[in-house]
């Protein structure tokens, strides 16, 4: 018998959370850890010794570069994502809804094709630099991306969405009277933002920073494509692996996740110093009307221009998909446009199979994420128990480890029968992919839900329960609707990521569940840039549709809880 019912409830909520985390995160990850301890047949720390004492210091250099790039990526993504979230959530202007949705589009970019679109856009022979060059009659292209700045640009571009989504969800939950109080006390707009709004968004910003930091630590395509020689840890892992040094790869992975977890702990500490629960008396949702009309239009213009820039890569992919293969090789600008690529694609009777697979897989995985994420987040934020930090770390590990490592872990863990897979061999079956996506995206939903849950005043839950509502009823009817914006933003991110997920897919897919990302990759490998782009376009359209539909739903929900 538990000490009392509240503890029992916490306990019951924890059971599934812990089970899932142990089975699908801890257990597989431990294998990586043990692998890293392996050397010459025995268990030693020598791999770690090597890592740090290596003569050429490449590992340390890579580690340092990774951290450096990741920190800068966090800053850059934040600098884009937070203002955009503010503009689109605080200012009303024509077309706001559409642009607000468009701002999510960068994560829709299929990863490899996306980076290539960047090269086509901004590389030395890219469209934009050459356009500028030709327009102004310059001799050299005025700028091009590449190297560290290139990585940063691509990171900022693809990752600001985490900030955008999570901060958007959190902004709506900030009691506007707090900002009013600050400006009443004489704080300028900037001060209000800096001293009140921004700190109150801390849970969201911390969450997004974590996600961005970790994903940049593990990021692969961007450093690889844009600065092949620049040493970062994720590439080192890749190279160790293709060099066959599995133990070293495991060691490097472990170190990478240790750094990520260190960052997680730092962030947790930072966030836990303060309280972010909106505990005003009553509901202070008098929406402030103080809006400077000039600012409004300036903001609107900034937002709109921003979004256009954000959508340029998508247009580039569209362009690529309309250019038949072989007609845009040495030419600066393409000259022939037709639907040849699409025609070729649609000749294949199975064209829709991967689309359908991706959708089905993503839906299954995301549904799992939704349920699991919301429960886990609730337990983490609103319940007291020992070992919270540990659970928090476990939750983030799928994001802290490179995706391929997660994939390999899963293979190792589930290509034999185990209790965690209900005595089945999962590898080679349909279910391994949704499981992989699910695991991979646990952190997304948990983090974004945390962000709004941190702001929720506990007495709302208490009120419901004192009215006789059981915990579950309370949860469904009161807590969930209030935190919906955060839940949805995480779920949407998870869904979109699942549809485009490549690194684990390639290790785990089977004939029966081959997803769209594999298809794109294969086209690319066969040098069918055009068809890959056409496929990419289909994927983008598909996700955009889902986003639009859910954003309608999301919008309605959000409005009801905000006004």
């Amino acid at each position: 018998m538990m000490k009392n019912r509240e503890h029992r409830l916490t306990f019951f909520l924890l059971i599934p959370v812990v089970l899932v985390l142990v089975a699908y995160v801890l257990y597989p990850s431990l294998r990586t850890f043990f692998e890293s301890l392996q050397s010459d047949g025995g268990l030693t720390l020598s791999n770690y010794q090597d890592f740090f004492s290596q003569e050429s210091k490449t590992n340390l250099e890579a580690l340092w570069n990774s951290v450096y790039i990741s920190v800068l990526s966090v800053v850059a993504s934040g600098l884009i994502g937070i203002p955009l979230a503010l503009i689109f959530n605080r200012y009303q202007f024509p077309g706001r809804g559409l642009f607000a949705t468009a701002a999510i589009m960068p994560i829709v970019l299929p990863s490899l094709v996306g980076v290539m679109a960047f090269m086509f856009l901004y590389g030395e022979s890219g469209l934009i630099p050459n356009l500028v060059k030709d327009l102004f009659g310059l001799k050299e292209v005025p700028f091009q991306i590449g190297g560290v700045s290139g990585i940063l640009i691509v990171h900022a571009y693809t990752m600001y969405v985490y900030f955008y989504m999570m901060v958007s969800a959190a902004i709506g939950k900030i009691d506007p009277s707090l900002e009013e109080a600050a400006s009443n006390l004489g704080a300028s707009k900037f001060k209000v933002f800096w001293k009140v709004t921004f700190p109150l968004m801390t849970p969201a910003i911390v969450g997004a920073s974590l996600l961005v930091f970790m994903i940049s630590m593990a990021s692969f395509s961007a450093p690889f494509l844009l600065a092949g020689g620049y040493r970062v840890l994720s590439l080192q892992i890749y190279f160790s692996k293709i060099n066959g040094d599995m133990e070293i790869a495991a060691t490097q992975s472990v170190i990478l996740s240790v750094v990520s977890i260190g960052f997680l702990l730092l962030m947790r500490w930072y966030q836990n110093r303060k309280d972010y629960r909106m505990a005003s008396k009553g509901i202070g949702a008098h929406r402030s009307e103080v809006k400077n009309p000039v600012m409004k239009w300036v903001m609107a213009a900034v937002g709109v221009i921003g979004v256009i820039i954000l959508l340029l890569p998508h247009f580039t992919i569209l362009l690529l998909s309309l250019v038949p293969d072989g007609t845009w090789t040495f030419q600066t600008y393409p000259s022939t446009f037709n639907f040849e690529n699409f025609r070729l694609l649609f000749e294949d009777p199975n064209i829709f199979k991967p689309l359908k697979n991706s959708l089905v897989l993503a839906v299954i995985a995301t549904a799992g994420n939704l349920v699991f994420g919301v429960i886990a987040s609730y337990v983490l934020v609103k319940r007291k128990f020992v070992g919270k930090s540990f659970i928090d770390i476990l939750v983030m590990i799928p994001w802290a480890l490179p995706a391929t490592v997660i994939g390999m872990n899963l293979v190792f863990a589930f290509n034999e029968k185990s209790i965690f897979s209900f005595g089945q061999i999962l590898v080679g079956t349909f279910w391994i992919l949704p499981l992989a996506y699910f695991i991979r995206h646990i952190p997304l939903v948990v983090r974004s839900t945390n962000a709004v849950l941190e702001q929720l005043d506990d007495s709302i839950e208490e009120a419901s329960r004192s009215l006789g509502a059981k915990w579950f009823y309370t949860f469904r009817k009161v807590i969930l609707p209030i935190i919906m914006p955060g839940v949805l933003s995480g779920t949407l991110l998870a869904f979109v990521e699942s549809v485009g997920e490549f690194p684990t897919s390639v290790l785990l897919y089977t004939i029966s569940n081959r997803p769209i990302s594999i298809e794109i990759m294969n086209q690319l490998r066969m040098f069918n840039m055009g068809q890959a782009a056409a496929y990419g376009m289909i994927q983008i359209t598909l996700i955009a549709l889902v986003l639009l539909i859910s954003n309608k739903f999301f919008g309605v929900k959000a409005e009801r809880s905000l006004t």
Partner: protein
Amino acid sequence: ACNSDEKTGGETEDKKDKLEEKIVVYSPHGKDILSKFEKQFEEKYSGVDVEWLDMGSQEILDRVRSEKNNPQADVWWGAPSTSFDQAKDESLLTPYKPSYASNLDDSFYDPDWNWSGTSQTPEVIMYNTKELSADEVPKDWDELLDPKWKDEIIIRYPLASGTMRTIFSAMIYRDFKDSDDPAKGYEWLTKLDQNTKEYSANPEMMYNKVAKGEGALSVWAMPDVVMLKENKNYPFDFVIPESGTPVLTEGIAVVKDAPHPKAAEAFYEFVNSPEAAKILAEEFYRIPTRSDVTDLPKWITDTEIKSMEIDWKVFQEKSDEWMKYWDENIKSGDKEIKE
């Protein structure tokens, strides 16, 4: 469980009516080739369903490795021999000696028959025909070091590329085989590095850059160059280095503990039949390994390939170390920061 089949390679033909209902192929050869052969194979052996997974050869190795305890694949078709050697060392493959073994040159199969070659890939100097005329182009490896090519060479990032690893290793090996010391080779690579404008992360980017004239030269595998030139209208052509070039062997292997061993062997035989080799050569620009294929297309018969003498064993042993050295010591850091 099926290890008993190990030495029964020759009998496959006799037992073909007992093939399993299905065969799973891992291959990087792409949709076009694979679906073509799927169709033909299924026509020939009705009742056998060919399933293929199309992915990069490195990914196949990863996958086969991680599925070691519960193999999903029967045949691994297509990868440089070095990858197979690595797989062999990790005992991921089942030896199989095909019926046409006698038609393969010694260098085209593993002594233990863990794999055998299906096509050969000579490495060449590739150039942009818009930027350079055939006379200007370097005729041999060493000419690439001429300072006039500074910032004209674009190279696929070698660590991740079997082709590039082979070329770089070969450059070291040229001296190493006599001196047993890679120093000379490293020196050569250092000079090449000085002329190299950029290391591209994937072939597409490299093609794109060479095509657009960001650089005029590269080194790459011949069949790909031909394919780009013929099929995709890229302004490319190639030169086979006069002093000789490493020729990679692409192979095929049966995966250890393959769930459908018989069908695997049938497929193994099938895709390397002379007819198949011819199709591959004509439609997909692959140079066969079998000596008994006739009527090959002109681009093969016309080119004279001077193959470099290479002990692949040494390559396999040393190349990781060499590449690591290159990565850590030769590759100049400023290459990636080009603004």
